[in-house]
């Protein structure tokens, strides 16, 4: 922890970055984001199994970007990012929301995080997104901290559930998702927590015409959740923040994981892995498979 704090403080004091977006501990089993602008702020920085937030969500926020402008120059932003969060940063760069040189990535050797705050970290409480994870080291970074550790081995319940749903017929599948989406209260916490939902004006905010109903009834909920899934197809990196943010426990990780699987199977594409690769939906190759559309 001390190494991280010293490193962050130096970055600020040398004038290399305008702020360090990191985590601070607020209780034994809970952390919260902090936008560290001073040396004192940096003394609070931590990294552990309770660092659940995907801080990349702040990289596209106007008020955070404004911080970069200091005394006539434009500085970088530093972000402490788990290897999975780094995928979000890469995806943002792939989508031209950021430049690689705008962000200073401080990452970690990660052995997984806890499912939710307040839980003791062990095999049972490993976050579902960590189960299939293959990037315990960040793919891109400017600094890496922490020792390498073993990730607890846990059965992949999300994959099992996806398989179960695939075995359902269309009617059963529709009923399953309708029941889940009926719980939705349209708080848009899923959208707010997602680093890739950065549209200044979301499709649901458009009223002329109203593409997606704002009401939280079956039809309105189904439209919203499905539209969001479609807008993230081939882009979602599976950080699971949407599911964690949802107050109604809607199993959004099922959709996220399924989208990742589809993109990989149909187009050999995984989002947020390679700065040089164009985005899936932003590029076209004559050899692209038609299967998903036919």
């Amino acid at each position, binding site marked *: 922890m001390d190494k991280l704090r010293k490193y962050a403080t130096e970055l600020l004091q040398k004038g290399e970055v305008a702020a360090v977006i990191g985590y601070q501990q607020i209780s034994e089993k809970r952390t919260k984001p902090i936008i560290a602008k001073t040396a004192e702020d940096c003394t609070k920085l931590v990294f552990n199994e309770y660092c659940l937030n995907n801080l990349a969500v702040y990289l596209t926020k106007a008020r955070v970007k404004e911080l970069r402008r200091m005394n006539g120059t434009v500085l970088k932003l530093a972000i402490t990012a788990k290897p999975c969060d780094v995928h979000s940063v890469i995806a943002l760069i792939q989508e031209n929301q950021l430049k690689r040189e705008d962000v200073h990535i401080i990452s970690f050797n990660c052995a997984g995080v806890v499912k939710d705050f307040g839980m003791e970290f062990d095999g049972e409480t490993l976050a579902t997104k960590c189960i299939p994870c293959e990037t315990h080291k960040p793919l891109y970074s400017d600094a890496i901290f922490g020792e390498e550790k073993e990730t607890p081995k846990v059965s992949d319940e999300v994959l099992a559930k996806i398989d179960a749903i695939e075995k359902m017929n269309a009617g059963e599948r529709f009923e399953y998702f309708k029941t889940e989406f009926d*719980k939705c209260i349209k708080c848009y916490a899923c959208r707010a927590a997602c680093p890739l939902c950065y549209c200044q004006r979301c499709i649901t*905010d458009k009223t002329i015409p109203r593409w997606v109903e704002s*009401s939280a009834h079956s039809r309105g909920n189904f439209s919203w959740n499905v539209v969001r899934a479609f807008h993230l197809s081939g882009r979602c990196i599976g950080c699971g923040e949407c599911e964690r943010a949802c*107050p*109604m*426990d809607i199993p959004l990780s099922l959709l996220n994981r399924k989208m990742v699987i589809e993109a990989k199977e149909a187009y050999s594409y995984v989002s947020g892995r390679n700065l040089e690769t164009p985005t899936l939906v932003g590029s076209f190759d004559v050899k692209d498979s038609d299967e998903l559309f036919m």
Partner: protein
Amino acid sequence: MEEKIISKEDLLNLCKDVIGNGHTLITPGKTEYAVVKDTSEIVLDTTAKPTKASYKTFVFPKAEPVIYYKRGKNDVQLLDVDVKQKKTVILGAKPCDANSFNILRHLFNWDYKDEFYNVREKQFIVIGLMCKFSDEFCFCTSIGSSPVSDKGADIFLVPVDENNYTLKVVTEKGGVFIKDYEKYLKAGDEAKTKKVTGEVKLPEVAFDSKQVHEWLGTNFENPKWDGVGDLCLSCAQCAFVCPVCHCFDIVDEDYNYTEGRRMKNWDGCQFGHFTLHASGHNPRDIQGKRYRQRINHKFKYYVDKFGEILCTGCGRCSRGCAVSIDIKEIVSNCKD
């Protein structure tokens, strides 16, 4: 009516009867309060965390039609909405939730009476249950309540020993309701109840709400508000899980070329577009201003207008916030 005792077994029998009589029974579930079809689904745990969402959706639905319309050539037909509510019993309401109706009723009856709310609320019997949970987000004691408060409940339960609850009738409505189930009640022991409630650890008082109210009146332009909005991502989780937040939107929805309904949907003051004018002007364009409104509305404006704090201290908003924004912390800082 003096305090009575009801055994845990008989409480379940009472629930069976309630369901058998055709009434709706609601108890705290995993995420939210849910309708119970079978008594085997009932779990009453005083040490449980408050549910992620409150039960306000039962009296103030997340989305409901207020009128139906049918467009003709150049005429329109309006069809009324008739709200029907069966007698509903909420069993196991935490004290922080139980008082929510007392707080909401003021607004929904301020000069214009919202019958969509009143017709429903009238049919509710709130059976409160003493609470033995407390975490870093709870602050019921700071807003004038406590984990053993029966304010807002029609009937209040205290688990007086392993097999029994004390049952106290708090309101006339509660008294009328319990008459049908008197066979399950035995004589109570007030001393025993007092001992149990006396042993409950009260959350530490985090702030003086009167002092906060005064500070808010003179610190609208205080630079503290600038920082408060930094982390907020402008969703409405806090407003929607809150037992007493009540802002809403009215929108029209067509279901075909001629017919549709006018919907009354939950809305949140933290959304960027909440105060957006058609001209493009937005008086609350940055998050700090919107969060300032939230705190002011809850701890000052509602108090000035209706004499109640628009907050129950349940801490759901903070516990559920994706970026852990803590309302208790922010209100505690509302001082010089």
